[in-house]
């Protein structure tokens, strides 16, 4: 019993999407649910990589160290996160059923 505009309608709307769903584990094919998991992992990985215990590995008190390792590390992680997000958002976006 599905009245018009029933919540389940949204589920049904994912139909054509799942048709596009690719075989997981096959090279060059994507599984949307894996992408969504990756989207969840990304900020968590970012948080972990930017937590003090890891940052402290790069701390130094040598005044002649030149480019401070911890600063280089932080900006490196930052750039990496942006690249991953760029890659992920374009794919998630294609697979999403948003308006």
């Amino acid at each position, binding site marked *: 019993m599905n*009245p018009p*505009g*029933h*919540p389940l*309608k*949204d*589920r049904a709307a994912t139909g054509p999407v799942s048709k596009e769903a690719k075989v997981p584990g096959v090279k060059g094919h994507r599984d949307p649910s894996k992408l*969504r998991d990756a*989207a*969840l992992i*990304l*900020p*968590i990985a*970012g*948080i972990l990589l*930017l*937590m*003090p215990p890891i*940052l*402290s590995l790069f*701390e*130094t*008190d*040598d*005044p*002649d*160290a*030149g*480019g*401070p390792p*911890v*600063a280089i590390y*932080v*900006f490196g992680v*930052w*750039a990496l*996160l*942006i690249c*991953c*997000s*760029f890659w992920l*958002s*374009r794919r*998630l*976006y294609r697979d*999403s059923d*948003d*308006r």
Partner: protein
Amino acid sequence: MISANLIVFISLFYVALLFGVAWYGDRQAKQGGGAWLRSPITYTLSLSVYCTGWTFYGAVGSAVRNGLEFATIYLGPTLVFIGWWWFIRKVVRIGRNHRITSIADMLSSRFGKSNTVAVVATIAAVIAATPYIALQLQSVTLSFEAIVGGSERLDTTVAFWAATGMAAFTILFGTRSLDENERHYGVVAAIAAEAVIKLIALIAVGLFAIYGISGGLQDVVDNAARALPSLQEISPPRWVTLLFLAGAAIICLPRQFHVTVVENSSERHVATASWLFPCYLFLTSIFVLPIAIAGTSTMPAGSNPDLFVLTLPLSNDNDALAIFAFIGGFSSATSMVIVSTIALSTMVSNHIVAPLSMWFLSQQGTGRSGDVLRVLLNTRRISIGLILTLGFVYFRFTGGSDALASIGLIAFCGVAQFLPSLVAGVTWQGATRSGALAGLIGGFLVWCYTLLLPSFEGTLIMSADAVAHGPFGIEMLKPQGLFGAQDIDPLVHATVWSIGLNTVLLILVSLATRQSILERLQSALFVNAFRSEPAYAMGLVQRSAASEDLFILAQRILGAGTAKTMFDSAAREQGKLTGLPDATPNFISRLEQELAGSVGAASAHAMVNQTSGGGTISLDALMEIADEAARLMATTKALELKSQEAERTAAQLRAANQRLRLLDSQKDEFLSQVSHELRTPMASIRSFAEILESTPELDDASRGRFAGIIQSESVRLTRLLNDILDLKFLEDDAQRIPSHAIDAERSVDKALEVTEGTLADSPARIVQGRRCGQAQVYANSDRLAQVFINLLSNAIQHNASDTPVITVETRKDTNTYFVEISDNGSGVSATDRDRIFEKMVRGEKSRGVGLGLPISRQIVRSFGGDIELIDRDGPGATFRVTLPLHTPDEAP
């Protein structure tokens, strides 16, 4: 030195340019053009209203004072935006579904369209924004003083005129109309332009610092550690706290909520912003470093690092760049103030003034078209002025002596109080209105006490002495060291206590209180934003009203034109060509949502209820929605179980199928062998019969011989058929051979008798070995004799020896009877050993059908015994028949 007049002139020119952009954007949007206004790039640029005067000037100051810590302010939002799929996307979807106008509206709508929640959130937001707006005024003043080389004392007239100008711009472009979606294309266009300008200005100064002051990129990197030793280390508690506060601020700051959620025109824009906005922040932050390094290396000691962006070009006589930097800073400050005041004035007018004015106007008794609209627009204009005034007053009170970053952080911690309610609101259906209120109020009061009041340094409410030693000298209540905490960073201290108390209160009070029905509906719609259709929930609230009254209400709020368009389209949808639409519950809910887009959910709900006289929510329908998630989960679970069951059945079917295939192939093999076996005697019978028929001259001897052959072949045929029938019968009905307690030795004797009778003219002989004499078994004596005959004749027939000798021995132990029949033939070859008991298999060199052994085994097994081929020393084969002995008192 640059003259003040020139700076004022340039600033005015820049502001005029901004007005032009805003006006052009508004006009484009109104004409339906301006796709660029709704592009993801414009959306992302408008998000960068996050980078205010604090960023433009304060980030460098912060980098000089606290090293790498400045980056957390931009890393926090980066982390939130790269996780857009899980949080921002949901908030944006809810915002669109429910026509949310501000963060206070969001919380109020979620917690049962409660006006109390909206009022508390509005007051909190205004108070938290005040120091932040003051910060912008301070940064404009500081930069102006720096560039014209004014006195050390901060000139408040600059701040005053800056505030006035910003108020004018905001009032002009931010409150032109009550847009049904609360979108301001002109303003967005202006802040997007400002975003570009401030980024380019900062990068320009950064490049100047690298190549104009330091000796290139390599030099900057080499000097980094020496110039800024603080870059080498971080303070863990502050680092984590700042990451958290910045991450919370990017969605909880009223202006960020406004640009991210309210001004959003497509969820797809969020996808682009998820990497482009972090990119913007990254660029901003990375150019802060060379400026900070060049500043500390070249500027005289004691100069304000907050102003390095400006003073570096100035002291190197690059006036043009200095002016450009000034404009960049000015852009940062103005865009923040404009969007903040729009967001805050919307909250004030929707949540504080709208309910009051509705009451006031209903007292007057006259309802003129657009009167509420006018009141609200005027309220917004007044609130914009008031909010800027508050900021100005704060700026004067605190004297603007603080570092820019620390003022901004006070505001961050204040707005972070929205986070627990916001997160719980969209993820936890059980969060209640009372819980949210308790959390908000508790957290907010702690923030005021531990962070905001101490920032006045004794000029407001608390004396300096009370801040330093606790009110009335009670050390335990020291604002910056509650319960005797010592040597803890005030920001970390305030964040932990306020957010901690906020969250705990939210959870505990939510668990202890109950939701109203409307709250349950809203919580289900919010938490299941991706699953439930808002349109479905529309008809849930059962209300009735006169269409005329609704039309009047809509006219008062939306204005005559908009109201008429909306009612006309609704009437057409209902199939009416003229007149007003029927006031169905669905239509009333839709109208409420349209109004919510202008005055907020709580006010719209109250107004519509005033006209329609309250209403009831169909409980059944509500339960259906509220339990949607639970039901879906149950369904999924059931499906999972079913599919597991189906899988098991399929596996069983597969196994059965495999067995059937095997049996089928065995049957085919059997049939082909049987037909082959049947054909041989048939062929000889037929050919001899033909000879007899076609050659009548045949002599008697031959005729007799042929008839003999025909007869013997017929007998063989009959026996074969009998065997097949036997086998069939035994396989079908093995248990039904009529059995009695018999003496098995007698069956052996009978078999020997019969067999010896056939041996008359054969060299073979049968030797009787040891016999046990008597053995009681439960069997059928004829069948048992048949088995022994079979074994004996096999032994004779398949014996290649010239003088076949068959030995028969019997014995028994306590409960088993053994019969062993051995011969002196060549034995059974290893390959045949395993197969001789299968149907239609014969020894390699033997004749015969090969049904004897399988039949015999079948018979013996039906009596509970077995036949096996046993190993024995010497030549020949030995078959052993075992049968269980029968004790008379034992039932079979």
